[in-house]
């Protein structure tokens, strides 16, 4: 049965008015908002917005973290048939200009002073942006700008309106149709202007429900919402599926308390990109290095057992009696407490997506009994395309096509998807829409990959990034930069990597070390350092990274198809790649082309055979000011290996 988000919300409110819908930790206590209270909140907000002039079909910007009242604001806008456009709260001011002007937006609901300041700065660039409401009044008491008001004031006017016309809200909700546009997500894109991905109630709800059926989600799930709501992944997990299933979404106290909140809530359904899982594992490993001898021994002993036995137990395979007993002991001493510390005691289903996940990382979580799985999807497909079934989770595939999805591989090796969750269009961009959506309804994912014998989808790289090695020992070999970068990033010491090599004779790489992991490693060796730039250029650190790179080379040499992608030279960058400098997208994907252009001198030095290169770079700080970072970077050669001949 087709429906809309506001109708789903009202159904939950009618069926279980006293049940928790949202929780938010404030002043040290988890405050609950019930479905009944949420319905009232949405009703009043909607009336207030209508009073302020928000009309059916208009867009409204929502900027902020995961706050219950911002979720309610999205529902309120949808109730009126208006279209919420969530934007990344950590985006720089200038990044707001395009979306706001592109969708001719004149209304905004934001979280706090930080976002208000950004939008007020845009008044000249976006003159139509007339009304701004804020959730948290802190620091805003003395702001007197025209059109700026608190969400409380909006609620107040909405309450009055609702008292005068009590039927208005319900009539508006009835008018909104399942086929109407429900939300627009701007994809950061690694090149060019962002594109507004238009989704209807139908597309989002259909995928949310398909995912829920696949994992048998109920209204008893607990979810912690802490990733940016502007990211479609977060939106699906804590908004679309929240309304489809009626479970509880918990909002953390602040961005810095997430690990504490995770531990307190103990979610049953969890979703995060690999970097979050990686960050958690790094913290565990660092703390284990500082632990006492007995604890260390216990940890190592039981983790070795877990790596051997855990994944098999997870997959429901037979395991010997002694191993079973050992694993039970391990659960008592190590796995259980560890899961509890990480906040994973109750996790029934956990997903990772957005990037490839390292096999060691993936195995670690599965071996301690966290049902971590992978999924495949994008903003354009409303996330759910492929999911891994419970007993078939693997590190190198992304799962099987789920309900309603058809997949085929084009002649050029690109994956094409047909699904009820596909975007309607790119907003005001028919050319881009035509590029990705065929007349027969196939969506071009831009990913190169194939379906393996078991029906699982396997992704190699972005189709447009796959290049060729020209000249040298590996002339004509395939170059898959992301594949190489991922292999590098699977090492805890390497945070980010950029591989260069298309149409060249060899492959070179920029490396970003993981400051926390390498910093701790250096401290253990009494290696003093002054900061990131200094640590990055230590000869000992170069040696450490060289070992990692050579391990990757040895691994690549085993794969006849990718042996040519071995790295022959590398350098460690003097600064961390940052979204504020345009080097990463807001979802933290490397913008390879931009980086190569920005650091052209370094690329030239790598291929020019130099052993060091001076570089000066302008960096933007979080508060919008900028500064200069300069350093002389070492460049080192690495060993490459002859390709292992194909056995068969």
């Amino acid at each position, binding site marked *: 049965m087709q429906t809309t988000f506001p109708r789903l919300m009202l159904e939950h409110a009618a069926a279980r008015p006293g049940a928790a819908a949202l929780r938010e930790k*404030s*002043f*040290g206590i988890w405050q609950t908002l019930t479905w009944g209270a949420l319905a009232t909140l949405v009703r009043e907000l909607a009336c207030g917005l209508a009073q302020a002039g928000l009309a059916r079909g208009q867009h409204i910007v929502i900027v902020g973290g995961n706050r219950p009242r911002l979720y309610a604001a999205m529902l309120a806008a949808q109730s009126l048939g208006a279209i919420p456009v969530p934007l990344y709260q950590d985006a720089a001011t200038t990044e707001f200009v395009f979306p706001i002007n592109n969708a001719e937006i004149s209304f905004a609901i934001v979280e706090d002073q930080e976002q208000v300041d950004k939008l007020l700065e845009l008044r000249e660039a976006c003159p139509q942006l007339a009304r701004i409401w804020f959730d948290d009044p802190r620091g805003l008491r*003395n702001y007197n700008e025209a059109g700026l008001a608190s969400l409380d004031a909006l609620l107040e006017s909405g309450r009055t309106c609702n008292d005068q016309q009590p039927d208005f809200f319900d009539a508006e909700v009835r008018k909104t149709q399942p086929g109407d546009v429900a939300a627009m997500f701007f994809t950061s894109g690694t090149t060019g202007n962002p594109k507004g991905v238009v989704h209807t109630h139908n597309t989002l709800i259909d995928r949310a429900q398909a995912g829920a059926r696949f994992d048998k989600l109920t209204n008893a799930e607990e979810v912690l919402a802490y990733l940016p709501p502007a990211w479609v992944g977060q939106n699906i997990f804590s908004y679309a599926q929240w309304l489809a299933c009626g479970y509880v979404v918990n909002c953390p*106290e*602040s961005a810095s*308390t997430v690990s*504490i909140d995770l531990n307190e809530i103990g979610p049953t359904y969890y979703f995060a990109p690999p970097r979050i899982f990686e960050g958690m594992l790094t913290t565990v490993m660092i703390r284990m290095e500082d632990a006492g001898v007995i604890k260390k021994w216990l940890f190592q002993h039981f983790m070795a057992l877990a790596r051997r036995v855990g994944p098999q137990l997870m997959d429901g395979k037979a395991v010997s009696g002694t191993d079973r007993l050992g694993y039970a002991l391990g659960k008592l001493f190590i796995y259980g407490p560890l899961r509890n510390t990480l906040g994973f005691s109750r996790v029934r289903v956990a997903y990772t997506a957005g990037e490839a996940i390292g096999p060691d990382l993936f195995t670690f979580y599965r071996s301690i009994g966290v049902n971590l799985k992978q999924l495949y999807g994008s903003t354009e497909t409303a996330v759910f395309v492929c999911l891994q079934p419970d007993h078939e989770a693997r590190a190198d595939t992304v799962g099987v096509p789920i309900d309603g999805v058809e997949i085929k591989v084009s002649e050029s090796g690109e994956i094409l998807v047909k699904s009820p969750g596909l975007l309607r269009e790119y907003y005001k961009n028919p050319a881009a829409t035509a590029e990705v959506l065929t007349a027969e309804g196939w969506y071009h994912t831009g990913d190169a990959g194939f379906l393996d014998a078991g029906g699982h989808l396997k992704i190699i790289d972005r189709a447009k990034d796959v290049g060729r090695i020209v000249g040298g020992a590996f002339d004509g070999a395939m170059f898959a930069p992301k594949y190489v970068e991922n292999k590098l990033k699977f090492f805890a010491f390497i945070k980010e990597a950029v591989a260069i090599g298309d149409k060249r004779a060899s492959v070179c790489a920029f490396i970003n070390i993981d400051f926390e992991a390498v910093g701790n490693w250096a401290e253990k060796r009494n290696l003093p350092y002054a900061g990131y730039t200094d640590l990055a250029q230590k000869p000992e650190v170069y040696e450490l990274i060289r070992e990692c790179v050579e391990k990757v080379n040895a691994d690549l040499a085993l794969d006849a198809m990718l042996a040519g992608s071995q790295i022959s030279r590398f350098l460690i960058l003097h600064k961390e790649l940052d979204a504020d400098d345009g080097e990463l997208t807001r979802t933290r994907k490397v913008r390879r082309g931009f980086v190569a252009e920005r650091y052209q001198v370094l690329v030239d030095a790598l291929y020019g055979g130099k052993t060091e290169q001076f570089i000066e770079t302008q960096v933007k700080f979080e508060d919008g000011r900028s500064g200069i970072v300069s350093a002389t970077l070492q460049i080192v050669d690495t060993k490459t290996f002859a390709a292992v001949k194909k056995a068969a």
Partner: protein
Amino acid sequence: MATRKIGEVILDVKNISLRFGGVKALTDISFDVREHEVRAIIGPNGAGKSSMLNCINGVYAPQEGSISFRGKTFSHMNSRQVAEMGVARTFQNLALFKGMSVLDNIMTGRNLKMKCNLLQQAIRWGAAEREETTQRQHVERVIDFLEIQPYRKTPVGKMPYGLQKRVDLGRALAMDPQVLLLDEPMAGMNVEEKQDMSRFILDVNDEFGTTIVLIEHDMSVVMDISDRVVVLDYGKKIGDGTPQDVRANPDVISAYLGTNH
């Protein structure tokens, strides 16, 4: 800061002299502090700034002179009486309980507001529990205000110095003070921590209308955030006025930069 109105004199220091044996720490110092203002006391090392604060705070009893708080004059006062009148302070070299959590440290700032006796608190039942809940609500507001939510349960001794300073401020704020005495709140901090601390001091002043008396070494900070400045040198007052006045005062310049003889 448009809404903040500087009011009447709240704290009046008259002709204070303080001696330790033959050492004259303070000689005939007079100045006043108006309600809602940020008042700075500056001066080179050993000028008597902390001694001055300790006199106001009731830790030292000056041999001569008087201090009036809201028109009431006192010549001898202990620090508990001062605290009960609504004067809170932070310390130059942090006097926190290192082994206790952030929460417990700030909770000690509510000590004066708690009425239950030791036994009741030890058993923590009935009235004592209700009282703790009420006081905890105040503490939580302070934690929220200072943005130290991630550290509630962290032992203070394990935290970086800049954060410890913030906890110290939090404990003073928990007293709901009318006057806040800050002894070098920015000592030993890096630029970012200093910016944060300046922000918090101005916010306290703006949001709660708390009168602030601060001692600080960092001249740029003092000039940026204070309304009026007193300058001490060798226990004597050599300047008093707005930051602009003080900056132009030749005695102040020579005390700080030295003069040609």
